[in-house]
């Protein structure tokens, strides 16, 4: 079961700080919900820099980003 961090409605750079905190708690994998392209780009870039594989899918008004240790 992956933990889900809800970063919808958060402005830059909060989604990335939240992702960092989530990965610190559960280093294997997590899911992050974001609702704009900037946050999606920032979270994905951060995850890749930390050695995670990031995939996302659009779910209506938001994106669900899945991070797994690469």
């Amino acid at each position, binding site marked *: *079961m992956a*933990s889900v961090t809800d970063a919808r*409605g*958060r*402005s830059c*750079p909060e989604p990335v700080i939240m992702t960092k905190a*989530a990965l610190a708690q559960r280093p294997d994998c997590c899911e992050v919900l974001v609702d*704009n392209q900037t946050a999606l*780009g920032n979270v994905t870039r951060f995850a890749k*820099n930390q050695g995670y594989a990031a995939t996302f899918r659009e779910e209506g008004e938001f994106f669900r980003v899945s991070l797994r240790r690469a």
Partner: protein
Amino acid sequence: MTEKRNLLIGGGLVGAVAVVLVALGNPANMGFCIACFLRDIAGAVGLQRAEVVQYLRPEIPGLILCAFIMALFKKEFSVRGGSSPVLRFAIGFIVMVGALVFLGCPYRMILRLAGGDLNALIGLLGFVAGICAGVFFLNRGFSLGKTVAMPRKTEGLVIPISAVVLLALLLAGGAGVLIFSESGPGSQHAPALAALAAGLLVGAIAQRVRLCMVGGIRDMLLFKDPTLLMGFIAVLVVALVGNIITGRFNPGFLEQPVAHTDGLWNFLGLAAVGFGSALLGGCPLRQLILAGEGNSDSGIAVLGMLVGAAFCHNFGLASSAAGTTPNGRIAVVLGLVILCLVGVMNSGLAGGKSKASSRSAKREA
């Protein structure tokens, strides 16, 4: 890698645009400056009456409009808001006070550096210190609260439509209502259509590559991620090369264009800009772009900057080439104190249950 490359190209173009605008008539080392230009616009519409800094700079409405059009085109026009609007207005106000005590926004800080103005180097140190303060609070759960989607698109149209109205007034020769400086920096400007084209170009680039003068340093401090810093560096390098080619590179502290040599207040002025911008989530340029994209939180920060600029001149806070003013020095210190208080109260440091603490709330999926 693509993102870094785009930022390098985008930042480089933005640096080049600034050099061209100076060649076409904008004040030296002020090809583009969000703070100075908002201040000039505040003067043009009579919100402040400093006779040397009144002109409707078309770069600003151009920037907003192009961000709006690009966002529509790319389906990124998203009307959201409701994240501490009055607080954002106040922070925008303080950012403007800091910028006008230093004499420039972060974008102009880079352009001043590229022109050899070493006072801007002191400013850069203050800017980094201010961002460090912002990062300190961000790491402790600082938040201005969630933004939510607005019920109608109307909210996001106000700023772009205001930009159109301002441009129409300018292109109508001021329509008998705008005030234009006859001397001083306000009287120095590139031809309106060229400046508008420059604003549109910078707006398009900044919207696409998400150029932010605060984001680069902030992300280095927070995540050791240099990506956004590429834009910052590219603006500097290209403007520097452009200035050397056009004979406008004059290294030194003294007699720099539209600048003063008061190091402490150059440092503290830009510290307020860096601190406030880190709390707002982006530099003044980025706030304008986001406002064009329909973000009403950024729209209100822009209005705070505009009103702040008017107060800076009405209350004698703004510096000039002659130096800082006592009122300006008091205002910067007060601004920094207020930013610290906002930082404490909107992070987990004030005690009690912070909204920010809910950020770590997670649900099991």
